[in-house]
């Protein structure tokens, strides 16, 4: 354990959280990532708007075909398209960088001189990474709903069951989808944080995090691995569709959240053990 560490002092934690949030959300790279994610609904909306009177109207995987009929679906279609790769990529970058970035820049040992215990410092880093994940999902949602309203207008949504619910109910359901997708990212943040404590090379931690999400997604597709599929990080990600069914099954949604909680518990504990026992030399 390094010798520069100091005893906790009252008030330091809040200041540290504030400065971490400023750092994460103000960092130019992270802003570029958020802008990039916001471009997804914008581009998707533009393309669908331009092609809506052609034969291609109403086509596309998942919810893409429904967007021209109702702008609210632009949010869902964008999240659906970002879930397999873009969201894990951006969140992997932010969370993989959390500790390893400081270590590679040589600032980690100075950070440890702040009178806050290492466990709490890790928690602060987790708050920063979670805040980025939340902003990423929110950025897609806000740009999606604005672009959707501008291009196609908002109206009551037709559920997967064929029932049409009023606009207010529809907005609530879409908001629930956004919250669920956001919460589905917590497990990935914990994984990224753990990898970040292992290395001083941020790119390594980022890559490992993204690879974890992608490998989980691929393994989930293999029927031979059906027995372990329910434990995979990505297994319940698409269950957000439950909010678009006639009667959302809270049991299914609960399973998805419980799975994320399990990944957070295990990888959070691993990150804590590693970070509180590691020798920090840079």
């Amino acid at each position, binding site marked *: 354990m390094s010798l520069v560490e100091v005893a906790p002092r009252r008030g330091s934690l809040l200041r540290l959280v504030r400065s971490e949030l400023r750092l994460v959300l103000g960092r130019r790279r992270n802003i570029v990532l958020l802008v990039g994610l916001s471009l997804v609904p914008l581009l998707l909306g533009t393309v669908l708007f331009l092609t809506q009177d052609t034969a291609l109207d*109403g086509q596309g995987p998942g919810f893409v075909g429904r967007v021209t009929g109702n702008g609210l679906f632009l949010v869902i279609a964008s999240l659906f398209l970002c879930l397999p790769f873009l969201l894990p990529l951006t969140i992997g970058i932010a969370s993989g960088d959390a500790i390893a970035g400081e270590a590679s820049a040589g600032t980690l040992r100075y950070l440890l001189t702040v*009178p806050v215990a290492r466990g709490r410092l890790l928690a602060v880093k987790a708050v920063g990474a979670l805040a980025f994940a939340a902003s990423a999902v929110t950025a897609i949602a806000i740009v999606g709903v604005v672009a959707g309203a501008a291009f196609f207008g908002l109206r009551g949504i037709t559920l*997967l069951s*064929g029932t049409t619910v009023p606009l207010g109910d529809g907005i609530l359901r879409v908001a629930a989808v956004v919250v669920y997708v956001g919460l589905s990212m917590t497990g990935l943040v914990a994984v990224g944080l753990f990898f970040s404590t292992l290395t001083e090379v941020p790119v390594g931690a980022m890559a490992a995090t993204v690879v974890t999400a992608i490998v989980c997604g691929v393994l989930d597709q293999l029927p031979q691995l059906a027995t372990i599929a329910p434990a995979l990080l990505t297994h319940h990600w698409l269950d957000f569709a439950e909010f678009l069914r*006639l009667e959302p099954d809270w049991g299914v949604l609960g399973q998805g959240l419980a799975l994320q909680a399990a990944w957070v518990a*295990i990888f*959070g504990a691993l990150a804590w053990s590693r970070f509180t026992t590691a020798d920090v030399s840079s």
Partner: protein
Amino acid sequence: MHSGAMNESRRTLSPRARWTVPVVAAVAVGMAFVAPPLFASAGDDGLPTITPEELAAQVASAEPSPLSGTVVYTARLGLPEIPFGAVAGADPINLLGGSSTMRVWSDGDQRSRVALLGPTSEYSVVQDGPEAWTYSSTDDSVVHYSLSAADQARFETLQEQAEAGDLPVQSDLPTPEEAGRQAVGLARTSSTVTLDSQTEVAGRAAYQLVVTPTSDTTLVGRIVVAVDATTSTPLRVQVWSKTDTETPALEIGFTDVSFATPADSVLAFSAPAGSSTRDVVVPLPETPTEATTAPEDKELPEGVTITGTGWDTVVQASGLDVAALVAGDPAAAANLPGVDKTFGSKGAADLYAEFVPEEGSGSPMGDLDTTALYDTLTKPVPEGRLLSSALLSVLITDDGRVLAGAVPGATLQALAAQ
């Protein structure tokens, strides 16, 4: 600045102890996820013992109760792997293999909804008395099944008669006890009927009725029906093949059920704006009295013969151009034997309507390449093409005959050669 040494002394956990925390977390998570099913699998043995006849009578006499729940259907038919990539979203074709989840709602009377769930899609079948709708979220299409105006009037008359209790065939209807005894008696002519140990399905105590064919030559090993002890509603049906004794070849059962009346909004359906709607008029069977006459009295449609008895029954139909049918040629469908005859049930009529498209509407299976599917599912044999699954074999001969039965493919081939 405080000294680091003071900080060290304040801590009590050694590095080694710190590394036990993730291990404890992993074990706790494992316990939380794996343990509950282990405890839940204990069967309920507190039910009174009854005979198979009593159980069958209870099922027959039970009022159909309103219910809603989740049904998991698993087919391990041993069919060749179907390229499911070609099928986007929830589609009934997925029921041929693998596991599917469905949600069901029923008011126990005339109205029901069944939704086949895909990851981000749904295929719904809504029934409201004589009307039915299917809705596929994948292509946003509605198919509306209804009776013609004349049939509708006849249906309503029958409904009123049934409510007044003077249905023309009412006198022929046996009492539930008799129906139960008859059903078990009928099953006993070709099978042994026993009760297995009591079990638990969807968290409810259930009796298990086992029907085992006495015949050695059929593919069916046994059929196990789990019946809810309180409401006498069948909760699970398993069909075991002779070849696989580890897992049932076909299993459909509730994983979650509640016997409350579903909300009205669930059972109602109106085509969503912007969807494509297709109307199909289904003929009502001519006289409902026919439905209660014994099957052997019914005249078989032209070209259809039945050989064997009980579980070894083989149905043979001749004069079919299967290849054209599979390709979705409506002209070939119109020549099907018995198409304009009566259907045994509404379900059969629906199924028929599903597979016989309207003129010019193309293949009923949408974009699916049915010819490719047909070639994948069947394999060439000297007599023609054979579809063999764990429970059923179908032989399509080159001279236009179709033989089907719950017997091995070789039996069908021998029959076809006669």
